[in-house]
């Protein structure tokens, strides 16, 4: 009667996981004033809302590591999120062989090692997918509020540009703004 020999392999690896997501859009600014002036007004409005100048761009970091990057000249917006995590992944496999040593056992050990590697890979991918989902959820959670805020910012810039334009055309007699409806009435004497 032959004896069975157990081969058991266990491995633990450290993985640095990274996940990111981003979305881009462009603010729809009306050409009321020359582009450079519109860009200035947009930059001022964004700074008022907590954006910080970094090179040509304005940046702000939201909750959950989401960053908003706006180029006031082109009015391009990029919202992105990046997550990093180091995880330790463990896997264990065992098999039985009839030979205590030699090529049969080596082959069994080799095949077991390959299976173990696949397990580790699968687990790492699952963890990465989880991290990616978290990153996407964080970004998605910010988008709706951000969209509203950027719409408001564009409305403010439009109103400021209209006031400047009106001042160039004549003397402003009266300005009335309704914050709720966003309407702006300028009475001019030309």
């Amino acid at each position, binding site marked *: 009667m032959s004896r069975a020999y157990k081969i058991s392999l266990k491995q633990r690896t450290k993985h640095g996981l990274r996940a990111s*997501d*981003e*979305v*881009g*859009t462009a603010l729809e600014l009306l050409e009321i004033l020359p582009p450079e002036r519109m860009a200035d007004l947009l930059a001022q409005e964004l700074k008022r809302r907590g954006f910080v100048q970094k090179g040509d761009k304005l940046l702000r970091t939201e909750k959950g590591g989401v960053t908003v990057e706006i180029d006031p000249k082109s009015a391009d*917006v990029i*919202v992105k999120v990046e997550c990093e995590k180091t995880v330790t992944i463990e896997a264990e496999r065992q098999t039985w062989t009839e030979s205590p040593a030699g090529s049969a056992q080596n082959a069994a050990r080799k095949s077991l090692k390959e299976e173990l590697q696949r397990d580790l890979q699968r687990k790492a991918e699952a963890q990465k*997918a989880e991290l*990616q*989902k978290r*990153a*996407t959820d964080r*970004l*998605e959670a910010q*988008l*709706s509020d*951000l*969209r509203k805020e*950027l719409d408001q910012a564009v409305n403010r810039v439009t109103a400021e540009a209209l006031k400047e334009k009106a001042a160039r055309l004549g003397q402003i007699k009266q300005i009335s703004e309704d914050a709720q409806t966003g309407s702006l009435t300028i009475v001019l004497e030309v």
Partner: protein
Amino acid sequence: MKAVSGFEYNLLRMLRGIVTQVSPEQILPILAKPVQRPPCLSADAVALVKDILAKGMVRWLARHGWASNRYLREGVPVSGRLWERTPPELLGLKFSRWTLEFLLQLMSNTLGAKKPQADELELGDRLIFLHSYQAVRGDERAEKMQNHWPSLWSDGLCRLFFVEELIDAKTLTRIDWSPWLTEQGAAILESMQSALAERWEHLEARKQTFRDVVKIRQFGASQARVLGEYLDAIDAVHRRDLARCLLDAGRRVMRDRPTAHRWIGNLDIKRERIADRVLIYRDALAFLHALDRLRAWNEEASHVGYFDEGYVASQLWKAVWERFDGDATTNHAAEILREARPM
């Protein structure tokens, strides 16, 4: 009386089926039993092939071109039926040896044994390929045609008609639009406008059943490429009036004022990154993006003054635009595109 062999008899039946576009049930059984091709066809059989092509294709053209319409001829709108807009002698279709060679290969299940070069093909050949593919669609022979008859892939009209089936894999096949932009080719293209519109309407309706992201991306990418290239090609030869099919299809699709949900609501995107969702939506809405381009064309047409070059053509464009509710159609399409933006 003409006498033909059994093989020739089946070939003639199949050709008649293809030309008259009868139900595939009449053609597929013939193709189901491939027969070895004879070394040559009898003179009687060749005469009958010519007869079927001559009568059948004229009948087919008449069926599609009877409606009175206005299209450009050398920059000037001309009204009437197809044969009133273009002299009938210019509408005569030519067929090269490749029509018969294609039919013989189809019958003997040796498709692709010899393949034509693009410059060897006549318009008549191209129409026969289109009709044949139409006849075998949904059957395994359609796949064989796709795999073994490259002319399908390089022909502009085939790509327009079967945009969801002729999807390029890794390498893109160059699409040759030039045969359909010659005087004769464009005249045939004019008569196909309604058929194309109807087909694209059905394709857009089919998209709402898709759940698979990969499928919609392939479909949309093919649509974006084919429609984009088509619009580029007709624009280059100053034949924007040939975009009527797109406008017509757009009106049909937007008739019940759908929302973006129709295109993207059923897609399984939960696991997709937002960056990828943007691309998925872009492909799912490829047809609407193409409509957006027509809006820009209409804007241009409305700025062409009486003394400007292209005034008459722009007037025709505006008339077509109104007839197909261009503003309502493209505004609604733009609304859907806005709705599908992630932010």
